């Protein structure tokens, strides 16, 4: 049987990308700096976020959306830092997508915060394909995981904007080679901004908070122009 080939040229995740672009516009208009967090399970996303919410929350309005397959444990933990926390339970899905974020935000009806964090499901593979409309994607790597993690998962490191090395208080015990980790991060994502933190001792957290405040300040001139245009 004969067939004919018809050109199509369509992105498979077009629907997700369109929705993410819409979310990004909405966040810009509301002057919300949105940060996505990705990492492998157990690398300290929730502990890091708890400390960061507390640090930023002293002078800024903050909120967090947290994704997990099951349980609301992470939301309960983060509520120690801010009441503005909402859990997304994905069931069997290994990543968040833009639709889950949009639905959660619409149901939530939270007044736009200055900073919104979206903690993805612990997974270093699947979340890399899905744009959530975030301004910045942070990828976390703990000192106990080994310094070659970026080389093993280049796609997620390359698709992220900032790398955060967590559990630095355990670096010596784990014989973590910080210089090699930094080199590996630069190998998969040249020029990547990198922070080293310990959520336990609080070391390095102030630098991350200051960086985010600066990033949000850079957002604002454009936002005001856009808000003016929208009126």
């Amino acid at each position: 049987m004969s067939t004919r080939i018809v050109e199509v040229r369509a992105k498979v995740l077009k629907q997700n990308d369109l929705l993410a672009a819409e979310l990004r516009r909405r966040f810009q208009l509301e002057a919300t700096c949105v940060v996505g967090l990705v990492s492998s399970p157990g690398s300290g996303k929730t502990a890091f976020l708890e400390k960061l919410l507390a640090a930023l929350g002293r002078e800024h309005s903050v909120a967090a959306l947290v994704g997990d397959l099951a349980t609301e444990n992470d939301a309960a933990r983060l509520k120690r830092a801010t009441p503005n926390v909402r859990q997304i339970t994905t069931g069997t899905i290994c990543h968040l997508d833009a639709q889950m974020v949009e639905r959660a935000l619409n149901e939530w009806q939270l007044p736009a915060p200055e900073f919104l964090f979206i903690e993805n499901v612990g997974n270093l593979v699947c979340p890399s394909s899905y744009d959530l409309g975030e301004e910045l994607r942070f990828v976390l790597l703990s000192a106990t995981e080994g310094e070659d993690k970026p080389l093993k998962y280049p796609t997620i490191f390359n698709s992220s904007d900032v790398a955060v090395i967590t559990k630095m208080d355990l670096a010596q015990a784990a014989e973590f080679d910080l210089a090699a980790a930094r080199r590996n991060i630069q190998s998969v994502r040249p020029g990547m901004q990198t922070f080293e933190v310990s959520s336990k001792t609080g070391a390095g957290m102030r630098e991350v908070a200051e960086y985010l405040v600066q990033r949000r300040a850079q957002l604002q001139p454009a936002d005001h122009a856009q808000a003016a245009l929208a009126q």
Partner: protein
Amino acid sequence: MHELSIAISLIEQIIQESAAREELRAGAIEAVHLRLGVFSGVDKDALLFSYGLACEGTPLEGSRLEIEAVPLVVHCMACDADRSPPSVWQICCPDCGTPAPDIVSGREIEVRALEIAA
């Protein structure tokens, strides 16, 4: 594994394209040609496996999925040229070694064409 989610999105995308373009409805869809970047985060074999499952009960049931791998290409500022880096974990120019953060291609998950029964 998120390839099943990708396969479902792929099928939904094709159904939408078919609804919008009459020439895609002229006959049964025999095959889908997909361009898949090596830096897309999607595994080819897992996607092929998922595609068969996701097609069941849709107009694409029984169709083939043909995957063309798109290599990673970066732009080297020093050479002012597009180059393929030595590996996915060494994002630099293969000739001069300059780090090359600008990705030109390799992230694609894109339907290129449909093969329609004539």
